């Protein structure tokens, strides 16, 4: 982007918002918004503490567990739905319902079914991420060029080979897009799980800081969370760009 003839570096809009945040904070309009500089100082101070690292590890565990499950189940299910009309008719209504359902309301049910531990948190995270991954994988498969499938069959591909050598790769641009959105939703899922199911990880920190009005700490954890989600999302976007050269030419 350029402004007044100068090329602006990437993410310069963030700088403007950071500046605005700092100004509002310095004006001391509300205790809810401490200056950004104070938040960053707090951030550096709490990063090496065992409480924070422990919370990070717990959150990462729940997040990675949930995301892995969502990817490992979601992609094959989505591809199968795109391949099989029958399966699609059976599952699509449910996928759509859960995609738009207020999943937070389901968390108490999960607690009854799976207890108050990490299992429930991982399942919550999975439920947040999986539906969009399924839908995108399905959409990717449905736009495959028919003659690629004919080609694979005519050269004697087994169904398994067709799955791994044709369907997966042909749907990969859509699959990566779905995983990227799913991962962002999983960040929400893991925090909601940690707040509602058992007060652990970052959820526990949020709970602790907000109930003690430690807004500097609160924002610091939020910044860390945003930074992590942003990094993962950008990494996946970069992968998407690597396959974009054929996305338009299938």
């Amino acid at each position, binding site marked *: 982007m350029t402004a007044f003839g100068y090329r602006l570096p990437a993410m310069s809009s963030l700088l403007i918002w950071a500046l605005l945040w700092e100004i509002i904070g310095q004006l001391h309009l509300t205790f809810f918004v401490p200056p950004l500089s104070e938040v960053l100082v707090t951030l550096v101070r709490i990063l090496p503490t065992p409480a924070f690292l422990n919370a990070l590890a717990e959150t990462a565990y729940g997040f990675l567990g949930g995301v892995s499950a969502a990817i490992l189940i979601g992609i094959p299910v989505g591809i199968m739905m795109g391949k099989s009309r029958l399966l699609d008719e059976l599952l699509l209504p449910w996928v759509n319902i859960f995609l738009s359902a207020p999943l937070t309301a389901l968390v108490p049910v999960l607690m009854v079914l799976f207890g108050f531990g990490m299992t429930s948190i991982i399942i919550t995270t999975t439920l947040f991420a999986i539906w969009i991954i399924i839908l995108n994988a399905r959409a990717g498969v449905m736009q495959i060029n028919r003659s690629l499938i004919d080609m694979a069959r*005519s*050269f004697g591909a087994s169904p398994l080979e067709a799955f791994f050598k044709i369907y997966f790769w042909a749907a990969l641009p859509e699959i990566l897009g779905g995983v990227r959105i799913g991962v962002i939703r999983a960040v929400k899922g893991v925090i909601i799980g940690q707040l509602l199911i058992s007060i652990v990880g970052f959820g526990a920190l949020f709970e602790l800081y907000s109930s003690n009005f430690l807004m500097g700490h609160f924002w610091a954890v939020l910044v860390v969370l945003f930074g992590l989600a942003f990094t993962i999302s950008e990494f996946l976007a970069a992968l998407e760009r690597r396959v974009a*050269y054929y996305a338009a*030419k299938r």
Partner: protein
Amino acid sequence: MLQTDDVRTANKAPTIESAVSVRNVSKNYGAVEALKNLSLEFPRGELTSLLGPSGCGKTTLLKIIGGLLEPSAGEIEVNGKKVSRPGPDRAFVFQDFALLPWANVIRNVSFGLELRGVARAEREAIAEKYIGNVGLAGFEKSYPHQLSGGMRQRVGLARALSVDSQVLLLDEPFSAVDEQNRRKFQEDLLELVRNENKTFIFVTHSIEEAVYVSDQIAILLPRPSRVSEVIRPSGFREKDVENIRRDPEYLDIVDQIWASLRTYAE
């Protein structure tokens, strides 16, 4: 018109051995009859064209021979054996090339061999040879989106050749290729038929193309689809590629086919 009558009597030669036989094949889509009781012989080592107006079921017939579609009735024999599925005895060349857009030329060409479980070094050596044969040497590491339409179809052709099937099925292979490249392709195809001892089944809607490249032309007519006649050009097959289009027999056959197809033009 006199000459073509000679041609038609000549095609009754019974001694030619068939590589592919189509026997009483019908194909219905619901109430729609795509093919009805169609029988046709494809002589070994020759190129047979399936020619006809759109909707005459020529691609359907080709896909049935390739085992990609199942006939509603009738059977297909390849080398005397009944077939109902794709097999290593047939290789397909697709109208829209059907290349893997995420794979480079050498992987695309060797993909048929890859599916047949040939080891990587071996299949890439074979692919390399056919990439050279179709005139794409130096493009092994290119991706399909970096190639022109004509070059992409050369990749498709190399892929079909590299699995070394006795029967090649070509579904309007040059229709998405520009005119100059198409002419070059047609010349190369004649060369191929002469040098490779394979049976070619070639679907086209271009009369000139069919007459130019074929040892035998089957004219298909629609509603209901059937073989209306089989023409075997005799005189100009042995001529040079440059002289075929000026041959009187070539011109007569083109005229004759147009006369029988013109009523089907919209």
